[in-house]
């Protein structure tokens, strides 16, 4: 993200309403490598390819805000790898992490990793450090510390079914697990900020908070998210594209001021639930429209979304979730052009 784009983002988050509104998308391995003509594994293992694919996207769509910009990513394996999770890599599929906890009791032996030396984290940091001069020369900066959220990491470590059952059967142990994942997250975010002083935002991705009810969120979600986001940065960005009606009213309490959510809810509903303090990034269907539709479908969906939304402040039109695989260039161009035309 270049300085102008960052300032636009910050202005929107602070409540200014630029005309036209910016369009923003989360882009990462599900979309970017294949769009650029590469496999996911090549993208992860070739620094040049990683850099050039990101620059290609930025240059192809200069009017779009790509969030979080250049970031530390090895798919879903990044954080679990620090806990010792075996990572499975196939040529053109998302890498995934195998469980490390076979029962809730094994939480008792779980150690808090050191982000400076455990798992893939040093590689993630080094890759970005190697590329940082070129990123800067291209006019961009590393703006966000990025991580999976505390519940999301917990489910990678022990399985979603097991974790979500254990919060009912072994709540104390699950609190212990979440304390460890959150302590680790705090360290990991701090280390990213230490390595890249240009960072002024945090992005946490955690769909699991959408799977629990309000009371469970207040117990197992909110305190941990609040701690993970408790840093002196300008943008506190949260992604959860599971249904999140139950937790939405609590998200401002976690310090979040930018939210990307799923298509289960409209922008109007989310604004009503979260209040005016959170900037909403959404909410065109990513797969059915942006991925599988035509440019005309995209134009229609963006128009309908904006017509159905009676506010323009703290709004960044996007899709409901990250950019899905297979979205063609012309659909993104149609999205950006429609937002620009309708919000002048």
């Amino acid at each position, binding site marked *: 993200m270049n300085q102008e784009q960052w300032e636009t983002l910050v202005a929107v988050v602070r409540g200014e309403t630029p005309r036209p509104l910016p369009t923003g998308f989360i882009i990462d391995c599900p979309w970017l490598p294949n769009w650029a003509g590469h496999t996911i594994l090549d993208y992860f293992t070739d620094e040049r390819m990683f850099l050039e694919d990101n620059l290609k996207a930025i240059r192809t769509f200069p009017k779009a805000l790509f969030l979080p910009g250049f970031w530390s990513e090895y798919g879903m394996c990044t954080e679990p790898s620090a806990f010792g999770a075996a990572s499975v890599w196939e040529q053109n599929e998302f890498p995934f992490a*195998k469980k490390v906890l076979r029962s809730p009791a094994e939480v008792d032996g779980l150690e808090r990793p050191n982000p400076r030396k455990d798992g893939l984290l040093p590689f993630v940091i080094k890759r970005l450090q190697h590329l940082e001069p070129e990123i800067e020369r291209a006019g961009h900066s590393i703006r966000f510390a990025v991580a999976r959220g505390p519940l999301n990491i917990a489910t990678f470590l022990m399985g*979603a*079914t097991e974790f*979500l*059952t254990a919060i009912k059967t072994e709540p104390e142990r699950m609190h212990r697990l979440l304390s460890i994942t959150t302590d680790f997250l705090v360290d990991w975010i701090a280390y990213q900020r230490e390595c890249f002083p240009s960072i002024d935002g945090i992005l946490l991705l955690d769909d699991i908070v959408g799977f629990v009810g309000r009371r469970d969120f207040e117990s197992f979600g909110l305190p941990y998210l609040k701690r993970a986001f408790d840093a002196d940065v300008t943008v506190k960005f949260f992604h959860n594209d599971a249904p999140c009606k139950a937790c939405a009213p609590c998200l401002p309490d976690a310090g979040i001021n930018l939210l990307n959510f799923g298509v289960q809810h409209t922008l109007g509903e989310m604004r009503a639930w979260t209040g005016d303090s959170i900037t909403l990034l959404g909410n065109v269907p990513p797969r059915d429209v942006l991925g599988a539709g035509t440019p005309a479908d995209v134009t229609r969906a963006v128009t309908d979304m904006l017509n159905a939304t009676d506010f323009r402040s703290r709004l960044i039109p996007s899709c409901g979730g990250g950019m899905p695989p297979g979205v063609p260039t012309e659909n993104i161009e149609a999205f950006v052009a429609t937002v620009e035309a309708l919000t002048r």
Partner: protein
Amino acid sequence: MSDVSSLSEAIERGDAKAAAAATRRALERGADPMSLVSEGISPAMTEMGRQFGEGDCFVPELLMAARATKEVFEILRPLLSQKGTKPVARVVLGTVRGDLHDIGKNLVGALLEGGGFEVTDLGVDVPPERFVAAVEHQKPEIVGLSALLTTTLPAMKATLEALRDAGIRGQVKVMIGGAPVTASYADAIGADGYAENAGTAVDLARRLIGADVASRSKGEPAT
């Protein structure tokens, strides 16, 4: 409160011990095992599915109810088997090749079982040939395919093609579901149905079986 009502309430609370106790008590008093399924378990899981679909109950509550149901079935299964009770239908369920996510599949399996279906869970990362083998050996009426990753959606199509190539596609209805799955994708790959969430999966399964029965009664081949 009757034993059957106690059983339903225990399942809805996710209290496996109370559900098992209510089941044993009902059986001691001469209850028919099948009536405990149809009047105790099935309404409870239907209600949980309804609440889940409407956002009034969440995954942990559903998992706990599933756990309680499983405990009750451990008691009832041998008795149902002795009586030769037939399930509503048999379902073979699995998360498709390349995908290790099991939560959606587990929820659907629990709700189907609670609805009187006999469920064979093939687990996660199931290759097409294992679905084919399961259909050939177990002769289910329905195959359920689950996926969470967008990248594993093609494995759903590959599974349908494998069933077709093996000449057994017409023997089963195929329902699909999972976060990246949509109704239009189900249509595009030729699945028979799409469940938007676990709460709607049981209704879909019932509809698929009903449609099949109706078409057969008209002398038409099942498709």
